[in-house]
């Protein structure tokens, strides 16, 4: 199919679908006039029922926790697929040490960059932890905090260079973090069943409203998500970086793991 035919087909589809889209748009409630009843009820009931201030976390980890479990396994599957594809040709043997490109010059980085990165890296990680643990009171949670934690490790890469980063970040630990986080979330669903409650029913003490320790089981689930997201994203960065390093060693596959 040539590009011209493809664009013509797309234009045809657009012309056919546009009246339908216009009808749907005019049928929707006007922007900003009202919200769905489900959200309204959640806003009204949940602060009393679950003792948490952040409704979004309450939905993610409690009211619709089963959906988040599904999302968690989508995340796990996507990252596993990426890592399998990247490692497939390279093999697992050489992931423990940094590969180097012979042709690329090593540019010395200035001491100011190293210093700034050594200060900013731990601070970013600290901010990520803050976002994770305050999931039930302020904006934030396992998903956002996990990504911020993973970005913190990238600042270490900026400051210490690739070899130093590989020394600090171990690939197998990241596998464990990612799988362990998903396992923790699943166990949070199964554990209440031992006491006769329903799957993922919030049986832990709910704590006080607006307190760090509020929300009961949500705190544990949030931790599981944070571990999985932080481990998964760091693993992605690491395997992608590794991919750029070994291009010149294509011809001697046996040499790589030696």
């Amino acid at each position, binding site marked *: 199919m040539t590009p011209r035919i493809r664009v013509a087909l797309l234009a045809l589809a657009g012309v056919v679908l546009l009246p339908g889209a216009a009808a749907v748009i005019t049928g929707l409630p006007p922007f900003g006039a009202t919200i769905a009843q489900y959200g309204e009820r959640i806003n009204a009931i949940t602060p009393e029922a679950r003792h948490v201030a952040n409704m979004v976390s309450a939905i993610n980890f409690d009211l619709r926790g089963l959906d988040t479990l599904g999302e968690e396994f989508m995340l796990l599957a996507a990252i596993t697929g990426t890592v399998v594809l990247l490692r497939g040709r390279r093999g697992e043997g050489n992931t423990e040490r940094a590969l180097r490109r012979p042709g690329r010059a090593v540019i010395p980085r200035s001491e100011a960059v190293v210093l700034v990165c050594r200060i900013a890296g731990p601070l970013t990680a600290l901010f990520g932890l803050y976002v994770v643990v305050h999931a039930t009171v302020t904006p*934030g949670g396992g*998903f956002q905090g996990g990504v911020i934690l993973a970005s913190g490790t990238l600042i270490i890469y900026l400051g210490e260079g690739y070899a130093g980063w590989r020394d600090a970040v171990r690939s197998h630990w990241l596998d464990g973090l990612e799988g362990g986080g998903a396992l923790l979330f699943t166990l949070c669903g199964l554990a209440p069943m031992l006491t006769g409650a329903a799957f993922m029913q919030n049986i832990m003490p709910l704590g006080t409203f607006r307190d760090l320790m509020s929300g009961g089981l949500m705190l544990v689930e949030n931790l599981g998500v944070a571990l999985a997201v932080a481990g998964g994203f760091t693993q992605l960065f690491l395997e*992608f970086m590794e*991919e*750029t390093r070994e*291009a010149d060693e294509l*011809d001697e596959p046996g040499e790589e793991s030696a």
Partner: protein
Amino acid sequence: MSAILPLLFLLTALSGTAVVLVRDPTRQVFVIAVNGLVLTILFDALQAPDVALSELAVGSAAVPLLYLVALMAVRNQLPGKES
């Protein structure tokens, strides 16, 4: 307050279109990062701080980095291929 939201929506449409129209992937990466930033501001104005935080970390830091590394990986394949 009522004027800033429509402006932000229009800005989002503009930056999204720019991502499509910039054909060179190396330049597109930076447009994607800017698009992530615009979406972050829009989400914040829509009273969604959770989503804004997530989009800020993912859309303007993590994803552009993945694109950059993918470009680097593809470029490195060029000289050594079929040798």
